[in-house]
């Protein structure tokens, strides 16, 4: 017991709950990590290869980003952990002064590499670069993440598609618990790097609960809700999210993986999640899709050729302050900088959405914020997605 306490005290993470919504499960926290404090709820942009889609670290910082993601699978392949150690970690390599979160590499492996096989030892796969057989074990994943030096590391979990049912889901859940213990034991930098557990259990409430019961007994800095946003029914999705937050400890951060659509963010904040990540805002920007409070705006569509308004007249990002839809529309035909403009805007949109969410929680008017947000996002009440209405009703928010 005293050892447990000492370990916790040394954890390089503190979470201070700044405000709790009196109606929903939403909360605003200050999450202090080794490189800076993160104001939650937070959206974390994804910089897969140690760079965020044409955006410099200075631009990212000036947009107010306090934490972004790097992908262990990609970085472990190229440039490789040894080189990153020499570059003083991923922070040094990309010269990013704020926080980094790295995934375990497992998800990418299962989704990107065809020839992967999961055994108790780990995930076996063939390197797409040289064809060599590689084993990604929990120890290996943590070792790479220790080399990357991220502020938050994710455990290696046994990833099963959220649409899979049956005994494989249960097996994956139990294996993920065993792998968590191996990850905790493998962490060489518990004083500098936080480890998050990933709650599994598919869409089965009993399995989720079993997983939650086990994992919350482990000494980890935070919890991720995993195995969702992989094409499952939204009705199943939100129920699993809210079930998870019901059983997660108040004093630790909750990270909902792979969620980044504006509506999902707002609803899942209401369900009690603190952290989110998604490649969508930056990926979609490259195709000219700009995120706006009323959904999205396809800059490349002909209708914007003579539209001299900024993407969002109320947006304060560098793109909207200088450029019109018409200019961006035309620039898409001439230069890649057009993508950068939309990427900057989309990151600004995500971050400012989360800042507004936080502000409303702090000021005790989050339910009102949700109602206004939904009205702006959808043309009419009839267009509200049923799952969102149900999810919000479950936390006492009725939409008008």
């Amino acid at each position: 017991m005293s050892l447990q306490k000492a370990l916790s005290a040394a954890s390089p993470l503190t979470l201070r709950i700044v405000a709790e919504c009196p109606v929903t499960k939403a909360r605003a926290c200050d999450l202090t990590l080794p490189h800076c404090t993160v104001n939650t709820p937070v959206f974390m942009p994804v910089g897969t290869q140690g760079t965020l889609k044409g955006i410099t670290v200075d631009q990212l910082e000036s947009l107010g980003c306090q934490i972004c993601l790097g992908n262990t699978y990609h970085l472990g392949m190229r440039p490789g952990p040894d080189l990153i150690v020499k570059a003083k970690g991923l922070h040094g390599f990309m010269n990013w002064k704020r926080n980094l979160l790295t995934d375990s590499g497992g998800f990418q492996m299962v989704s990107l590499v065809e020839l992967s096989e999961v055994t108790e030892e780990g995930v076996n796969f063939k390197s797409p670069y040289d064809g060599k057989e590689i084993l990604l074990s929990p120890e290996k994943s943590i070792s790479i993440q220790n080399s990357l030096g991220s502020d938050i590391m994710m455990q290696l979990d046994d990833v099963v598609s959220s649409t899979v049912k049956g005994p494989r889901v249960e097996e994956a859940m139990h294996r993920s618990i065993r792998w968590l213990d191996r990850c905790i034991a493998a962490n060489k930098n518990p004083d500098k790097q936080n480890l998050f557990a990933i709650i599994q259990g598919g869409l089965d409430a009993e399995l989720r609960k079993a997983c939650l019961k086990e994992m919350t007994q482990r000494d980890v800095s935070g919890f991720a809700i995993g195995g969702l946003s992989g094409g499952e029914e939204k009705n199943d999705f939100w129920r699993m999210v809210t079930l998870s937050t019901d059983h997660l400890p108040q004093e630790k951060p909750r990270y909902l993986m792979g969620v980044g659509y504006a509506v999902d963010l707002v609803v899942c904040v209401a369900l009690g999640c603190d952290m989110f990540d998604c490649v969508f805002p930056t990926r979609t920007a490259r195709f000219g899709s700009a995120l706006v409070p009323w959904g999205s705006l396809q800059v490349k569509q002909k209708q914007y050729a003579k539209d001299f308004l900024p993407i969002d007249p109320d947006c304060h990002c560098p793109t909207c302050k200088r450029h019109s839809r018409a200019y961006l529309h035309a620039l898409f035909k001439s230069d890649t900088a057009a993508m950068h403009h939309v990427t900057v805007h989309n990151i600004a949109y995500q971050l400012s959405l989360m800042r507004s969410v936080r502000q409303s929680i702090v000021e005790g008017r989050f339910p009102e914020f949700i109602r206004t947000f939904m009205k702006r996002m959808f043309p009419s009440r009839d267009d509200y997605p049923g799952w969102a209405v149900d999810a919000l009703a479950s936390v006492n928010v009725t939409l008008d």
Partner: protein
Amino acid sequence: MKLELSRVIQGGARLGVLQGIGRTGQHSLKVPGCLLYTHFGTVPHLTQDTLQTVNNLPSVTQVTLSNIAEHQEVLEEFKEGFKAFAGLHNTVLYCSLHDPATRSPTGYATNKTVSVWGSGGRIELTASKFMALLKTVKPDWYQSMADGETWQTNTSRKRIRKSVDRTLAYLDECLLVHQKSQDLDGVELFGVVEGGDVMEERVRSARETAKRPVAGFCLDGLQTGSVDQALRTQLITSMTTELPEDKPRLLQGVGRPDEVLACVEAGVDLFEGFFPFQVTERGCALCFNYDVSPDPECAVLELNEEKHSAGDNMQPKGDLNCEDQTQMTSFEMNLKDKRYQDDFKSLVEGCGCYCCKNHQRAYLHHLLVTNELLAGVLLMIHNMTHYQNFFGAVREALATDKMDLLKKRVHGETRNT
């Protein structure tokens, strides 16, 4: 616009300042100098935030009708001109016909029209369409319409003569519209000197163009790959002797540092700033030495070492076989090369650009091998900075009689001066 020359060096090189440029006359541009190269008003890869990290940006921004022509309708509806449309504030806008970084196909110019190639294909321009376009663009300077199809070697004398005649005829047509148009009040027109590789035609074109009320001269048809530098120097000299001293001369399509130096000595004032872009597109960083400062301790000695090793399997400089503008020159290092994989030095030691101050070669190498967009952003910032500083060194060398030293530096013969 007024060209104030502070020095004219025997043989032709000119040092000075173009004062009172732009419609409101509040800008100036040091010569020899280069323009800001853009795609549709945007420096390739860069947003204003990243562009503004570069110090001493040229005060003149170049756009091309090849980018703009297809958007004429939009600009007509917008009404405020291209600068406002592109969010460009506080710059002089120069509008030229073609993109200097790409080759336009030949065989399309007629007595009445020239063609430009946009994203949607070829657009044919008559003089009146050309002028109508410019009225919507509202530039501060523009290049007159020109038949520049004679850059290819072995173009016949007859074809060259025709291009000179046509270009003069276009110019007269443009001038006629220009002088009657209130929209173009205060806008400066640059006449285009053609003549291929035929000395008499060059002289004739220069002499005739100089008779017209133009603000300056574009020297066309001498781009990299069309003639060798010795002939280019001769042809430029033959033209500049015909041109008035008080008007600027802009050389089109030449950007390699060694060629720039030779052309400056032949009397060229302005260049198009596309070279750093070409270097960026092949994943390279400019690293040639241009240091002529009196303190040798400041000299960036490492530069040339890098350059030599990087240029090992390059063709020797001065080789005319540079038809392919995408080919690497010996003024740059190829960061895709495996040797930079674990090289934690900054890109170019001593460079103060955003890229060099913040990132290492190993990171640039990683961005290039993973095809990440940030590679283009960072390389463009460095290459533009390096190139701008090179032009600063050219002016310093002219001011302090160090052109020979600068040439040696640029050509890589360092330390034995």
